[in-house]
């Protein structure tokens, strides 16, 4: 069993940004973005995105985006590596095993926006297709600001239906489907003219085949694919505090608590500073610390036997600590069309602590990664 971490990138930022939404309204904007990820276990991902937002009328707008993920993943360390049509399945992406980029994914999304006064509604759909996984989803959100938009409430939800088609030709039991329902809510409250709080909450229900179809465990007594419960329900609450602590310098602090029905809990703390170095140049630096406890059915790798209902080799269900550090900048070249163009860049360094499950799977004691984002936004 092996594989599964498909580092594919797809993101649809759409809801839960009420303050920004209320402040800016529907914009005519063309966005291009290039994301790059690389780590010490051989995964590289190149992910370009193009997006278009267009105001259609006084109240209506349209958002579209199209992303391609090109994944070049590590060679497989465990297993026979034999996949569909004789291709080799790599250890990380679970993709086709072709030379060069192992997997491509396309992911179009489209949404409509309705806005009137302090009310805003957003709803849409996305489709995602890769060599062994296909997903279709619908999403929507409502936002309302009151008390001169000193308080903004948002409610959102999404439903995703997906199906595996494992490249190993493995039949998945009891189903090859995966469904996810998510409900989000947020509340933003201004404290004064230079600070505010934002509270976010999410409820997520996942059903179906929730393990990776590729991860497997080999110890002294068994060689088995990962098996997880077919239902997982989780709750997460995050509180963000933003304050201008000095003229031109803002501080963003955030804490998130998570727990689920697999007995996992996590704590995430983030801190970031942004500084207006010049009128058209903002720079930032940040740190993030993450800690999770293992799922209740996770055992030490050598303790699993054929009697176990659930088997886990994936480090992501184990006790885990990670840290990341990043820098960023946003620049509006004033000589181009009255600052209608923004260039944004960010770089982050990410690493896990030493972890026996990572060692078992990747042959490295920890994962060390870099990720880079370069984006250009044009308001027309």
């Amino acid at each position, binding site marked *: 069993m092996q594989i599964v971490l498909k580092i594919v990138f797809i993101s649809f930022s759409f809801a839960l940004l009420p303050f920004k939404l209320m402040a800016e309204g529907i914009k005519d904007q063309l966005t291009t973005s290039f994301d790059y990820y690389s780590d010490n276990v051989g995964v590289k991902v190149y992910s370009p*995105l193009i997006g278009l937002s267009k105001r259609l009328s006084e109240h209506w707008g349209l958002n579209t985006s199209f992303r391609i993920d090109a994944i070049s993943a590590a060679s497989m360390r465990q297993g026979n590596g034999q996949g569909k049509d004789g291709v080799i399945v790599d250890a990380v992406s679970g993709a086709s095993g072709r030379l060069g980029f192992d997997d491509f994914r396309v992911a179009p999304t489209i949404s409509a926006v309705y806005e009137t006064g302090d009310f805003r509604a957003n709803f849409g759909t996305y489709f995602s297709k890769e060599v062994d996984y296909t997903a279709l989803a619908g999403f929507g959100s409502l936002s309302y600001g009151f008390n001169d938009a000193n308080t903004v409430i948002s409610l959102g939800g999404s439903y995703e239906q997906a199906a595996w088609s494992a490249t190993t030709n493995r039949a998945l039991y009891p189903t090859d489907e995966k469904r996810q329902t998510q409900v989000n809510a947020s509340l933003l409250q201004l404290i004064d003219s230079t600070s505010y709080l934002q509270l976010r909450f999410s409820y997520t229900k996942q059903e179906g085949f929730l393990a990776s179809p590729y991860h497997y465990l080999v110890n002294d007594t068994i060689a088995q694919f990962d098996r997880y419960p077919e239902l997982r329900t989780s709750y997460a609450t995050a509180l963000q505090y933003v304050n201008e602590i000095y003229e031109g310098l803002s501080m963003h602090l955030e804490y998130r608590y998570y727990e689920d029905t697999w007995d996992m809990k996590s704590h995430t703390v983030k801190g970031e500073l942004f500084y207006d170095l010049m009128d058209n140049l903002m720079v930032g630096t940040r740190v993030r610390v*993450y800690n999770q406890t293992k799922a209740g059915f996770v055992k030490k790798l050598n303790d699993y036997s054929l009697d176990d209902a659930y088997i886990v080799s994936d480090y992501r269900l184990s006790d*885990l600590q990670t840290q990341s550090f990043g820098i960023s900048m946003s620049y509006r070249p004033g000589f181009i069309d009255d600052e209608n163009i923004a260039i944004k860049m960010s770089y982050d360094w990410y690493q896990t602590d030493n972890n026996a499950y990572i060692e078992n799977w990747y042959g490295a004691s920890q994962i060390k990664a870099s990720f880079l984002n370069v984006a250009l936004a044009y308001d027309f």
Partner: protein
Amino acid sequence: MKRGRTGILLLLSTIFLSACTHVAPYEKEVLATQKMLSNPLSERTAFESHIYPIREGTSGAESGFQGGCGCK
């Protein structure tokens, strides 16, 4: 339930704050700047809201929504 109490406590705390403050529209100049946005670099947020859930075992309550791949 513990999680319910925590969420309600945070929610009520935030609501209570609303009763003791009012920022007029003309006082929002600083709040409207990019560095004060909840999400100043939206493209980066879209990117990282996929990275972290792939590399870690838990996710949720992010400022962006992501989904669609078999990586989690």
